[in-house]
C-alpha cells in the first residue's frame, strides 16, 4: 500500500496527488508514467508522473475524471492509500537543444507535457507554451507553465479565458511568424492529430504522447500496441512518445473505445453510490494495514 501524502483539486474534476513511492521518485525522468491500482477489484491505470520529490520520496500525479477508476481515485484524500503503484514506466522524453520548441497541452495533457517543458527549458531551448481547455474553470498549471516558458498562450474553446479558439490556431499563427524547430503536443487524440496536420507540411519535427489502453505496462501483453508508420509498437515500452507524423490515430481511437459498454455500466453503477464504494475501499485498506502491522509485530 502506498500512502497519499497530499491531495488537492486543481480544477473541478482534476486532482493532484503526491504519493509515497521512494524507489519511483528516485528514478523517474520527464515523460515517464506509473500504473496505479486503487483497490483489489480495480483496474490498473496509467498516469504520468508530473513531478517527484526525492526528499520525502513522493511522486506527483494529476488525474482527470474519466470513468470509474479515475473518479474513485479523485475522491481519495490525504491519508488514504492506493493498493499498487509501479514505475517509472515508458521511455523518458527525448530532450535536446532543438532551438525553438512549442509545447502544447490540452486539458490534463498539460500535466503530462509540463515536466518535459521544464526539461526543454533547462536544455536551453526557447520554449513557447500553448495551453488549451474548454473553459476558464478547467485551466490548470498556468503559473507553472508561465514560469517555464518564454512565451505563453492560454486558449479556451468558449473564450472565457485567454484567446478563444483551438491550440492549432495559435500554433499555425506562430509558425507563420517565426521558425519553429520542434513541437510537443499532448492532449485529446483529435487535438494531437490536428497538430500533426499543421506541422506535417511545414516539416517541423513533432512528438505526441499516446494514451492507448494498458494492462501491465512492461511489454508483456501487447494490448497497448499502436501503429507507427508500417511498424507495430508497444506504447508502454517503446513510447509513450512517438513521431506525430507517423501515428495511425484512427486505429488508436478505435482501440480506445473497445470497452465502452463495460466502462459505462461500471461508471453508472459507481455513480449511483460512490460513497459506498469509497467506504468499502477504505475499509479494506484499513484491514490490510492491521494485518501488515500484526505480521510486522510477529
Amino acid at each position, binding site marked *: 500500500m502506498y500512502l497519499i501524502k497530499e491531495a488537492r483539486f486543481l480544477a473541478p474534476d482534476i486532482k493532484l496527488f503526491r504519493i509515497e513511492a521512494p*524507489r*519511483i521518485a528516485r*528514478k523517474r525522468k520527464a515523460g515517464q508514467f506509473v500504473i496505479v*491500482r486503487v483497490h483489489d*477489484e*480495480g*483496474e*490498473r491505470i496509467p498516469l504520468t508522473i508530473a513531478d517527484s520529490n526525492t526528499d520525502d520520496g513522493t511522486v506527483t500525479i494529476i488525474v482527470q475524471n474519466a470513468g*470509474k*477508476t479515475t473518479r474513485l481515485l479523485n475522491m481519495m484524500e490525504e491519508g488514504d492509500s492506493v*493498493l*499498487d*503503484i*509501479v*514505475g*517509472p*514506466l515508458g521511455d523518458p522524453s527525448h530532450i535536446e537543444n532543438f532551438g525553438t520548441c512549442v509545447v502544447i497541452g490540452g486539458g490534463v495533457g498539460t500535466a503530462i507535457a509540463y515536466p518535459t517543458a521544464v526539461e526543454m527549458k533547462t536544455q536551453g531551448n526557447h520554449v513557447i507554451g500553448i495551453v488549451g481547455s474548454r473553459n476558464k474553470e478547467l485551466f490548470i498549471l498556468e503559473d507553472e507553465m508561465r514560469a517555464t516558458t518564454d512565451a505563453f498562450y492560454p486558449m479556451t474553446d468558449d473564450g472565457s479565458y485567454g484567446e478563444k479558439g483551438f491550440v492549432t490556431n495559435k500554433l499555425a499563427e506562430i509558425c507563420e511568424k517565426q521558425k519553429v524547430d520542434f513541437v510537443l503536443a499532448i492532449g485529446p487524440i483529435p487535438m494531437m492529430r490536428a497538430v500533426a496536420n499543421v506541422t506535417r507540411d511545414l516539416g517541423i519535427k513533432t512528438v505526441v504522447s499516446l494514451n492507448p489502453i494498458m*494492462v*501491465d505496462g*512492461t*511489454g*508483456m*501483453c*501487447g*494490448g497497448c*500496441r499502436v*501503429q507507427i508508420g508500417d511498424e*507495430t509498437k508497444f506504447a508502454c*515500452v517503446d513510447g509513450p512518445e512517438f513521431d506525430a507524423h507517423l501515428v*495511425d490515430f*484512427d*486505429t488508436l481511437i*478505435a*482501440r480506445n*473505445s*473497445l*470497452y465502452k*459498454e*463495460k*466502462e459505462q455500466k*461500471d461508471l453508472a453503477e459507481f455513480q449511483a453510490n460512490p460513497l459506498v464504494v469509497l467506504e468499502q475501499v477504505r475499509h479494506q485498506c484499513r484491514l490490510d494495514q492491521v494485518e501488515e502491522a500484526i505480521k510486522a509485530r510477529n
Partner: protein
Amino acid sequence: MDRLPPKERMKISRSSMPEQDAKDRARNFLEVNLGLPVLAAQHEAQRCLDCADPKCVGACPVGMQINDVVTLVLDGDFIGAAKKIREDNVLPAVTGRVCPQENQCEGACVLGKKMDAVAIGYIERFVADYERETGNVGLPDLKPSTGKKVAIIGSGPAGLSCAGDMAINGHDVTVFEALHEIGGVLVYGIPEFRLPKDIVKNEVENMKNMGIKFETNVVVGKTITIDELMTEEGFDCVFIATGAGLPKFLKIPGEHLGGVYSANEFLTRVNLMKAYDPEKYDQPIYDCRGKNVAVVGGGNTAMDSVRSALRLGAKNAYIIYRRGEDEMPARKEEVHHAKDEGVQFMTLVNPVSFLGDEKGNLKVAHLQRMELGEPDASGRRRPVPKEGSDFEMPLDVAIIAVGTGANPLVQSTTPDLDTTDRGYILADEETLATSKPGVFAGGDIVSGSATVIRAMGAGRKAAKAMHEYLTAQAPV
C-alpha cells in the same frame, strides 16, 4: 498399507482422475480435476513396483524422490510424504496439477512399457492437497542464518524454487516482482479452472513463513537496476528469472483490430485481473458471449485461452493450428479436456489476414490450408501452404498464442550481461552463472518457453551454485 506382491500390483489398473462434468465445467471457472480421495491415492501408490533404480526420479527435472514419497503414502504418513516432496519441490500442489508427467516421471515409469504408468502426478497432487486442507504443512528445516543477501528477479516457478532453496540454506532472500501478484505464469497465465489461484497464494504464504520476503511492483531495469541492487542495496548475489513474457504476433494484416488479442493479454485480463467475474471486478474483456472465437496455436497457452473463451460464453470456440494434432505441444490431458468441452479443432490451417468492420472490430478471418512437408530444425514436419486452398470464416475474437520471446528490460539495463542473438540470457549449463559476477539466470529467460518443472529445476540448479558462490566468499 502393506505392499502387495508385484504380480498383484500389476493387476490394478490406473486410477482415473475424477473431474467436473464436461458440459457443466465448459461454462464455469471452477477447477476441472477434483483430485483423488485417500483410498484411491493409496490404491494408485500400490501400483508402484518400487524399482531398485527408480527411473522416474531421474526423469524429474527437480529429482523428486518419488519412490520414497510413494512408500510414505502407502504408510499413511501423508504429511511425511509432503515434507519429502518439499525437499526438492517448493510447489507440489502446482506441479501435481500442471506438469506434463507423460513426458517426465510417468514417461520413464517401467510400468508404462507394458501398461499404464503409475499416476505419479495424481499422487503428488493428493499429498499436497491433503497437506493444505489439513493445514498441517511439512515445511523443511532452515539452516542457521548466513547474513548473505540474495535478490531474485521474477516470481515465477524458477524464482520461487531458487528462493526456497536459498532460504533453506540460511540466506536472506528477497523476491522482486513487476506485477502486483506473486507467481508469474502461475497467476497471470494458467487459468483458475486448471490451477486455482488460492493454491498459489497458499504456497506463497508457506514461503513467507520460511522467512522469504516479497516485493511486488518492482520492475527491475526500470524501478531499480541489477547494479543498484548489488551496490546500493547490498545484495551479494542475484538470480534473474524473468520468464519469456514478450508476446509474438503473426505479423499479418488486421492484427490491430478490436477483438484480436495476444494470449498474454487475454489470459492476463481473465486470470490476473479476474475479468471472468465482471460483476465484481472492473477489468473489461471483449464480450465473448454468443461469439465466434478462435485461438491460433497448439500449446498449453492456446488450450488455456480457448477453454477460457468457452467459459466466457463463446458460441463457437476453435483451435487453429498450422500442423497436425500429433504435433501439438500442449499436454495431452488439456487437449482431451478441450475436446470434451466442445472446442473445435481446425488443424493444418493458418490465418492469412483479419478483416474488420467500419468500427475497427474483427469480423472475418481469411485462412489457408496447410500440408506437412520435410522435417524442420525442430524435427517436426514443416507446414507448407496448399495452393488455392484459401477460405474465410466469420470471427469476432482471435487470440494469438504462437509463442513468446524474451523481455529485454533487464538485459538492456545490465551492460555486462551477455545474451543470445534472440535476447535470451546466456548462462553456464552447469551453474547457470551469467557473464556478470554474482549474477545467475534460469527458467524461460534462459531456455525459452519450457515448463513449470523445468523452470523449477533451473531455480534449484542455480541455488546450488549460488550457495557455493556465497560460501566461498568471506563470511559476513
